[in-house]
């Protein structure tokens, strides 16, 4: 190849101005590397082109430079933040090199760590909230259970008290009825009252009982004021003395209050007496244990 002809073929200008095709460019680059004359011709044309461009220039808008700089400064800050985020992640450069990852890889890893940290934060927050709720719930359960226990026992004692009151009320009612009955009997002009006093057989001389005998219906009521307490297996028995003969008027137990005990109907009697007999009574009175007696 004749170098002079090659240089004069227009290839130099064609190459520099970007008009040469792929094959021409490759060939020219090889020629430049091999032949200093070709390289010199290229340099010479490039310089003249550059110098020529300096004359009669147009000027761009004044704000273009600042726009370019804000764009490249964003590029720079992105690069810097990538680098610093890698460092702030606390990953020593040695380890980063060993893992063989690019700066992008380190970045992904640190952002993954951030995600993990966030997840961990959320998980621990939820766990903490759950523990607090559990403790609160347990405490409340304990508190309410104790409250319940207290209220239940209070309720139970109230129920008991109410039952007692009701029972007591019934007792009082019964007792009141008995009093009323007794008062009615005492007010009744047809009622014969027989006061029975202690005999010499009676260990307690203050013993006293009353018999109310309805002269119309012949019903007999007994009111015990005071009698010695009978032993187990013993029971008092009321007798009516009819024409000198004792007639059974029924057995009775001692009880509190003014209770009038209805005894057997006695159509006719001159006196009444009470003996202490074996439980259930006897057909005939035991005279040694005749404790009280009174004439009609």
């Amino acid at each position, binding site marked *: 190849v004749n170098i002079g002809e090659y240089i004069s073929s227009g290839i130099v200008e064609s190459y520099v101005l970007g008009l040469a095709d792929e094959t021409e460019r490759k060939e020219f680059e090889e020629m430049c590397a091999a032949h200093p004359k070709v390289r010199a011709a290229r340099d010479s044309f490039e310089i003249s*082109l550059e110098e020529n461009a300096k004359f009669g220039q147009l000027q761009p808008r004044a704000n273009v430079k600042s726009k370019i700089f804000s764009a490249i400064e964003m590029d720079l800050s992105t690069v810097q933040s990538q680098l610093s985020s890698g460092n702030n992640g606390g990953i020593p450069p040695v380890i980063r090199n060993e893992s063989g990852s690019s700066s992008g890889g380190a970045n992904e890893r640190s952002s993954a760590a951030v995600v993990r940290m966030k997840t961990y934060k959320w998980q621990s927050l939820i766990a903490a909230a759950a523990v607090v709720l559990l403790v609160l719930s347990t405490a409340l359960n304990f508190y309410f259970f104790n409250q319940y226990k207290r209220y239940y026992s209070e309720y139970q004692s109230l129920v008991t008290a109410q039952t007692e009151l009701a029972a007591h009320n019934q007792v009082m009612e019964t007792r009141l009825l008995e009093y009323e009955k007794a008062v009615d009997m005492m007010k009744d002009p047809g009622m014969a009252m027989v006061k029975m006093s202690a005999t010499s057989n009676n260990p307690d001389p203050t013993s006293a009982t009353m018999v109310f005998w309805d002269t119309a219906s012949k019903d007999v009521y007994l009111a015990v004021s005071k009698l010695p307490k009978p032993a187990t297996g013993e029971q008092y028995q009321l007798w009516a003395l009819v024409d000198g003969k004792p007639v059974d008027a029924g057995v009775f137990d001692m009880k509190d209050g003014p209770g009038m005990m209805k005894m057997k109907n006695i159509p006719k009697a001159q006196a009444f007496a009470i003996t202490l007999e074996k439980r259930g009574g006897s057909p005939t009175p035991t005279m040694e244990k005749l404790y009280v007696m009174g004439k009609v």
Partner: protein
Amino acid sequence: LGKPLGTIATYTEHELVTLLKSRDTRAFSYLYDNYSGSLYTVIAQIIDDIEVANDVLQEVFINIWRKIESYDPMKGRLFTWMLNIARNASIDTVRSKSYQNSQKNLAISDSNETGGAQAEQVNIDNIGFRKVLERLKKEQRVLIDLAYFKGYTHEEIAEIEDIPLGTVKTRIRNALMQLREYLK
């Protein structure tokens, strides 16, 4: 125009390239101050719309900053590399659909109102490379315009001008040889 010495740093091309590759913003600022006019002139010779030409200049300098690593001094001077980036970006813009549509709209409004958008356009025939082109014969000038400023391949030019491909190649080569003489 004398530059005040000491206040503005000057670099050799080698220094400038080394600094740019190490992301030195001061060197990039120097690059812009020294080359924006030349590159904008080339862009404005291809793109009629001043707004678009300024946008393309911005895009070109951002690309220079981002692609400086790929610049190989063995293949040519820094200015040549930047000039080709500017020329390619301009031709791509002119050929884009959005630019063609906007120019159609401009053409319609121009025909309705005299002045207007035309005032935004600058007479570029008397500056830089264009001025040199003016000295060429008309048949050569048309081909250089199609090849250099419009980016058509020799085959496309042969079709557009309806002349044989060989003739296109010969005429362009002769025109380039003459350009070299004019530039000296």
